[in-house]
């Protein structure tokens, strides 16, 4: 495994870039959709056990669509309000904070979750801010007065990598005196 790309600086607290944020969102979307599908399957199974009728969920069903949107809002809004990060953001080592860097309050978290769909409008132009804005803030970040930063300490990761390499080198090298004993046999 190659050494971590970031070496000298910790990057902790710096504005997170587009790739980290996109990967975190992709993970969140996958996880939230999977959990939603599992929940629907569990409900179908429960209904089938209780009533004996099988329930099939149609994707075009407006009720399912509304529940899915509410679930998405809950998944993102609750995660941001409680810890400032979703599951995907935790994996990628990023978190949402207020624009000045202090911790995100629940009100801003809810606002950010509510206006998050706005960034999808006009072919996702709202997300363009992550690429071109100097502070990498999307439309929903600007409206909610929030920013996304790295909460992951790259410097600590490099030290962990070096520690593992040193541990491997120590375990691979023969113990002192074994070479001399081998030569004598």
């Amino acid at each position, binding site marked *: 495994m*190659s050494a971590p790309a970031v070496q000298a600086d910790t990057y902790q*607290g710096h504005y997170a*870039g587009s790739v*980290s944020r996109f990967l975190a969102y992709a993970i969140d979307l996958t996880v939230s959709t999977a959990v939603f599908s599992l929940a629907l399957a569990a409900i179908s199974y429960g209904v089938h056990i209780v009533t004996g009728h099988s329930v099939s969920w149609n994707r075009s069903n407006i009720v399912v669509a509304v529940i899915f949107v509410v679930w998405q809002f809950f998944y993102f809004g609750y995660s941001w309000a409680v810890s400032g990060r979703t599951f995907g953001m935790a994996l990628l*080592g990023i978190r949402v904070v207020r624009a000045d860097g202090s911790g995100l309050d629940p009100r801003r978290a809810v606002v950010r979750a509510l206006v998050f769909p706005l960034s999808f409008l006009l072919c996702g132009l709202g997300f363009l801010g992550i690429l071109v804005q*100097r502070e990498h803030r999307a439309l929903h970040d600007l409206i909610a007065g929030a920013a996304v930063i790295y*909460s992951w300490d*790259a410097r600590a990761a490099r030290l962990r990598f*070096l*520690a593992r390499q040193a541990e491997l080198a120590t375990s691979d090298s023969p113990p002192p005196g074994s070479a001399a004993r081998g030569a004598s046999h």
Partner: protein
Amino acid sequence: MNPRDRLRSAGRRWTDPAEALAQQVTERVVDLIVNALDINELAARVDLNALLNRVDIDAVLKKVDVNALLDRMDVNVMLDRVDVNAVVERMDVQAVVDRVDLNPLLDRVDVNDLVKRIDMDALVQKTDLGAVMARSSGGMASEALDAVRSQAVGLDQFVDRWVRRLFRRKHPGPSAPSALLSPPAAILSPPAAILPAHAEP
């Protein structure tokens, strides 16, 4: 002329040569005595303790101008003649250390600056600290997570560089929110409420 004056001038004719002769005789006698004396034997007979007991040392010291004395001394020459190793060997270093108040000393030390000077890479690679960290850092999952995050940060920077070139920006924007930029130490040790990095899975 006064008859007394005549007597005086006659007396002077006799007394002046007699006085000069007496002076010469005295000097000669003193020379002979000094040459005849054995100074060492004389010194051996002197009871120095009794002599010193009669001397008022405080009064003598009060008359000494120590500053003038020190001005005339060449301290470097004196130090050259001092065997520092011998002095140190005779010192009770433990007693000296016990008397030192370390707290004011430590208050003056900039520990953050000190830590910045440490080559952590070398420290981790060459000491047992690395082994301790390796055993406590969560194994393969942690290693994979570090690698994914590192690659993502690398790609973030790559994209950011291209965007800056595209928009011909000479100066990059602020690297972090203001609360995390000032003071600089905030980035090194962020408030736990904001950035609990080590609490992550």
